[in-house]
């Protein structure tokens, strides 16, 4: 594994351990989706995105929009790790008056671009940011992470259609394709396939990657950062609960809190991964 990828692997491992600790401490959370998105978010914040955490509103910054706003465990650990706020704040997750709400809030948490939570909101906002950049011929890039179940929301396709129409080459959507939504498999609920064809039909370039392979993610993101005439959709094939054996591919861990024994096992597995 090259240096960049091994750094992402290490940061993602830290994020996984840290977000599980937050969920245990808070007594609630969305560990399944957090863990499926962790490697994607780690690759973005610890390699790809250009930002200054001391100046989170700098006009030229790259933007990351968390359309799957419920996966705050992954987002908050990345923001803290990237220096947007003190790491110690992670201990306040979901506590009264905490800045770390169950869904991200830009009005009181640096680094958050737009308040999400209801699904189907992040992509339209990201498209608007990219249109602003297109008008200004700015060189910032816009990344948006969506859940796969979220693609059942009509507003996502309104935005996808418009991004294709405008040829928003600085826009990249990453689909966290873990194939599970809250209660069941996406394909058993309201099937998304053929998903790549759908994006292509809406005027996008499409790449598919292993969403837990840092090197593959970095390669896809490097492609995303080159000049393009179309928006890019990266379908990141992932596992809900990835990295913790008993959570992997279990819809039941969409919500949920590990008990003491499960938590100990999860941490042991994650520590073993770093030794390996």
């Amino acid at each position, binding site marked *: 594994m090259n240096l960049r990828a091994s750094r992402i692997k290490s940061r993602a491992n830290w994020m996984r351990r840290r977000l599980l600790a937050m969920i245990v401490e808070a007594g609630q959370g969305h560990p399944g989706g957090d863990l499926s998105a962790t490697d994607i978010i780690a690759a973005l914040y610890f390699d790809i995105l250009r930002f200054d955490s001391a100046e989170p509103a700098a006009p030229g910054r790259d933007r990351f929009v968390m359309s799957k706003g419920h996966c705050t465990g992954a987002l908050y650990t990345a923001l803290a790790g990237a220096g947007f706020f003190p790491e110690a704040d992670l201990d306040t997750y979901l506590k009264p008056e905490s800045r770390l709400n169950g869904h991200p809030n830009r009005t009181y948490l640096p680094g958050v671009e737009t*308040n999400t939570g209801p699904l189907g*909101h992040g992509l*339209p906002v990201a498209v608007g*940011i990219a249109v*602003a950049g297109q008008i200004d011929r700015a060189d910032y890039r816009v990344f948006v992470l969506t859940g796969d179940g979220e693609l059942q929301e009509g*507003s996502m396709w309104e*935005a996808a259609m*418009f991004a294709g129409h405008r040829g928003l080459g600085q826009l990249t959507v990453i689909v966290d394709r873990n194939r599970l939504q809250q209660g069941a498999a996406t394909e058993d609920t309201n099937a998304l396939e053929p998903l790549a064809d759908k994006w292509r039909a809406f005027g996008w370039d499409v790449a598919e990657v292993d969403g837990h392979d840092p090197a593959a993610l970095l390669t896809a993101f490097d492609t995303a950062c080159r000049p393009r005439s179309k928006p890019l959709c990266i379908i990141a094939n992932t596992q809900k609960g990835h990295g913790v054996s008993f959570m992997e591919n279990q819809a039941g861990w969409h919500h949920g809190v590990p008990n003491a024994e499960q938590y100990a096992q999860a941490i042991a597995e994650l520590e073993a991964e770093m030794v390996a």
Partner: protein
Amino acid sequence: MSAAAAPTGLFDCRDAYVRTVEQLAADDDRIVAVVNDSVGSSKLGKFRDRFPERLVNVGIAEQNMVGVGAGLANGGKIPFVSGASCFLSARALEQIKADCAYSHANVKLCGISSGVAYGELGATHHSIEDVAWLRAIDRLTVIVPADPWQTAEAIKAAAAHDGPVYIRISRMPVPELARTDATFRIGQAERLRAGTDIAIVANGTLVHHAVSAAQRLEADGISAQVINMATVSPIDTAMLAQAAATGAIVTAEEGLAHGGLGGAVAEYCATHSPVPMRMLGFPGFLPTGSTQWLMDRFGLNADGIFAAAHDLLKVKAR
């Protein structure tokens, strides 16, 4: 102080809206317009010709329109998101709440052809619920201008304001109101006429009718105060306190009789200064009829306000 509707003519407030947005755009390249295939109905054709790159037409997709507006604000723009108010306020309600108000995005939402401007097209196209819905959203400024001058001032004030604003732009022709103090501030109501027996609190297309009704009440020996409550949220409570001091309030608006301006005034009065009230507006889904027919059918004119004031004064006298 007495103010009368200028008899010089009637105006479509959309003209003042587009004229002002164009002026602002000429001086500030952050100003952009976002529309849902509504260039014509929003009268933005000239804006598009002057500033083609700054007219963003998302097509018939209101949720995306408001989300894109919030994104443009994130990118440093001042977007005027313009669409028929029935669709803008209803279809995109969650985007207005989450992307604009909760996110404190600097988006200016312009509801065109509001109220019953679409007359015979029916309740799907009437926008009589918008003020009730939108004033329930925290941190969203809601303005209902009464005439072309106030529409232009509201647009300028919205552009200068940091945060989301909904401006309800009327289509029904209205006169330019006569006024002695031509200043507009968000959240500051305008007293067009002093009076001590009763207060008429109106906004939008009902304000000039309120002035006419007050003139007729004066002929009956009744001193009626007229307040143009253009900003519904945040509402001018100091002015409401003075209105309540008359001991009777009639509200009038081109919208639902409950939940909008009347509801806002009633909330204030019930908790601070209870007075008998009459709330004039529409009762709900409306029968087929032209804009003018609907306004007259439901007493949203000078006659209706005059009659309601007389009726209310009987209650006050008890």
